[in-house]
């Protein structure tokens, strides 16, 4: 029943697409980690003339205030990755707790929690996130909160289905018979077995969170004190024809990051559930 990690790793490593994704993501992570070393501490520092094209005085040019695009992209990588990871962590935890309880206990608890989940699945995510951020005032915290709030429902449904499926397996029933506490059973017996499906979906959530954040910033709902790709694209979009690189290059970085994460997600999916390969959108 336990996932055979050796086989998973082997399958994953045989997938060229997934390897490409992993290498790409590693490069982006390295960029994020080394941002300060490579480009200085403050990406908001004005270093030169505005709207310098790439490969002139500055590697990737400057933005409309004369700030280095390279520094922005490097520091933005931190923010995008951090937002992606944190929101996914929050929404996955929320999803597992709510979906797990619903799936394990069933009955009215299930009914109530599923109505709650449906509520969040019914209101269009982007619209709801926009409303929440605008109302609570745009900042990195409200952005994370809003994105997590609109992302957890999918994971909850998945967790519920997995917990329901595993709830009636022999090893769980045996534990119940032995008098093990529900919490322990859920945490130690069911969760490890449900994790593979959840991890695959969570990896997709990282990507969609990053895109949601960029979308919010694009609409002017980002945190002005944090250099994120969304902020860069948003602030450069009026200059698209004068200086395409201001939003063009962060846009490319965004695309590559999401691409890398998706490739890894696909690889994981294939490795964990070879029968369903590709079913995860």
């Amino acid at each position, binding site marked *: 029943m336990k996932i055979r990690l050796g086989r998973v790793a082997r399958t994953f490593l045989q997938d060229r697409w997934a390897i490409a994704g992993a290498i790409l993501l590693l490069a982006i992570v390295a960029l994020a980690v080394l941002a300060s070393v490579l480009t200085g501490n403050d990406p908001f520092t004005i270093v030169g003339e*505005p709207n310098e094209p790439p490969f002139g005085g500055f590697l990737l040019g400057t933005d409309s205030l*004369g700030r280095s695009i390279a520094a922005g992209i490097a520091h933005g990588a931190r923010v995008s990755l951090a937002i992606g990871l944190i929101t996914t962590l929050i929404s996955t935890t929320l999803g597992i707790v709510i979906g797990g309880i619903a799936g394990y206990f069933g009955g009215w608890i299930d009914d109530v929690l599923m109505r709650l989940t449906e509520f969040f699945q019914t209101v269009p995510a982007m619209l709801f996130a926009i409303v929440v951020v605008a109302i609570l005032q*745009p900042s990195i915290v409200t952005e994370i909160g809003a994105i997590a709030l609109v992302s957890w429902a999918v994971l909850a449904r998945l967790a519920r289905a997995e917990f329901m499926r595993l709830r009636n397996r022999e090893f769980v029933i045996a534990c119940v018979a032995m008098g093990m506490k529900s919490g322990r059973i859920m945490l130690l017996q069911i969760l490890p077995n449900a994790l593979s499906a959840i991890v695959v979906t969570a990896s997709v959530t990282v990507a969609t969170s990053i895109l949601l954040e960029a979308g919010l910033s694009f609409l*002017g709902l980002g945190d*002005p004190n944090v250099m994120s790709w969304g902020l860069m694209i948003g602030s450069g*979009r009026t200059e*698209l024809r004068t200086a395409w690189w201001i939003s063009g290059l962060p846009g490319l970085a965004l695309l590559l990051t999401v691409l890398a994460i998706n490739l890894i997600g696909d690889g994981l999916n294939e490795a964990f559930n070879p029968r369903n390969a590709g079913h995860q959108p």
Partner: protein
Amino acid sequence: MTTIYRRSLAACLMVATAALTLLGAVAAPAWAQKPGGTLVIVSTPEPTTITNAFNSATTAGEVGTKIYDGLLEYDANLNPKPSLATEWSVSADGKDVTFKLRHDVKWHDGHPFTSADVAFSILEVLKPNHPRGPGNFGPVQSIDTPDDYTVVLHLQNAYPPMMRAFSSLDAPILPKHLYAGTNLRNNANNNKPVGTGPFMFKDWQRGDSIVLERNPNYWRPGRPYLDRIIFRFINDPATRAAALESGEAQVASFGSIATSEMRRLEKAGVVTIPLGGFQALAPVAMITFNTVDPPFNDKRVRQAVAYAIDRKFIIDKIFFGFGQPATGPISSVFKGQGLFTDQVIHFDVPDRLKRATDLLDAAGFKPKPDGTRLDVTLDIGPIGDEYRRMGEYIKQALKQVGFNVSLRNEDMAGFTRRTSQTYDFQMATAAWVGMGDPTLGVQRQYVTSNIKKGVPFTNLGRYSNPEIDALWAKFAIELDPKKRAEDAHQLQQKLVDDSPMVWLFELQQVATARKEVKNLINGAFSVQGGMYETWLDR
């Protein structure tokens, strides 16, 4: 009675007739105005109502000024010119103002226009309902209409600033026969307005466009030239610029496309950007300090900010030259009237950074081990991308002298609440319109009586200085232009010394027009005027 300005109706008509005869007699020369064509203006945001008697939002004014006329118009130096009124005079004590009206004006629905419309509009519509009504017409006590074409305003006290508030932008004249006795704000005509102006309302497709048609019976003979004006409301600035570039639109109001795009299109030879048409608004961008709470209750800290900011950088790099450094509260637009002076403290000095740190030292804000001196917050007014960028620049500029600035971006509702309701802010950037006279648009930010919780764009910094209050009060009712100028100069010197604001720059709020658009600017107005002189060289 002292006549300040007098224009003869007869002379006016003669000139017009002569011009017409001339045009009719000779074949139209190459430079002649060509009638016809549709002009598309991109603007933002879509107005809530297009009757600008109840709303002074920019776009409401842009649409309303085509449909309505005012009693007067103004030239580039803000001197009055005739419009619905042909003559006007002010009594020696300044308390009676008489207007003679045109006889040949009809509303778009065919009703004749009379003095009753004017009296009704000023007393019952504008004074109580226009956002600036109390400021513009507060002292008006009663209005007499001795005949159909004479209006006499009786004022509580002399109030010279009022003479700059009769344009169609500030005081559009509404038809009494459609409004009298109704609930003015909910009157159905507000959204399908009937005016006397050069263009008639045709259609409003919400979320998309407003269509105005030429008024064939307009009282200015041969005007307007255009057959149709269409306002297009597009939500995205890049798309608006694209519409102008592709020729789908011919004119973009200021703020609807990025200043960098304006320059790019100008350089590419697609558009021209004639300088002017913003004098009636006299906009100035500034930082408002919360002068009640620390640290900006200390004049030295406020001045340190003023010294730390490089105005040239903001104008050149962020607004791409559409502005000039501001020296004080009153815009240099008022130079023509003698009200402006630059004999004030200047903050653009070579050793400005040292002066800033000295002031901070003196105020007790010494550098901490990490090099910063104090933490402050800057609220960015939600009025466009350039202001957002300006906020980011100010953060960097203040960092040089030890301020650690965090920026806050809120939407209009959040921003106005924070700055005018809870006063939970330290510094806020915004652009303020000065209007035709400092009393009308500038005074409101500095007088104690205008500290009004819950009302946006009042004295937000809660600056209170009895000396300044007294000066503004004197300035408002002073009839002698020379003494008035002296008061204005004193106000500027004292206010700059106290620095309740940082006056960053005077915004040149110009419209961008494709090359085929001619005569966009008329006096002190461009897109916010009647545009009856504008024509298309197709």
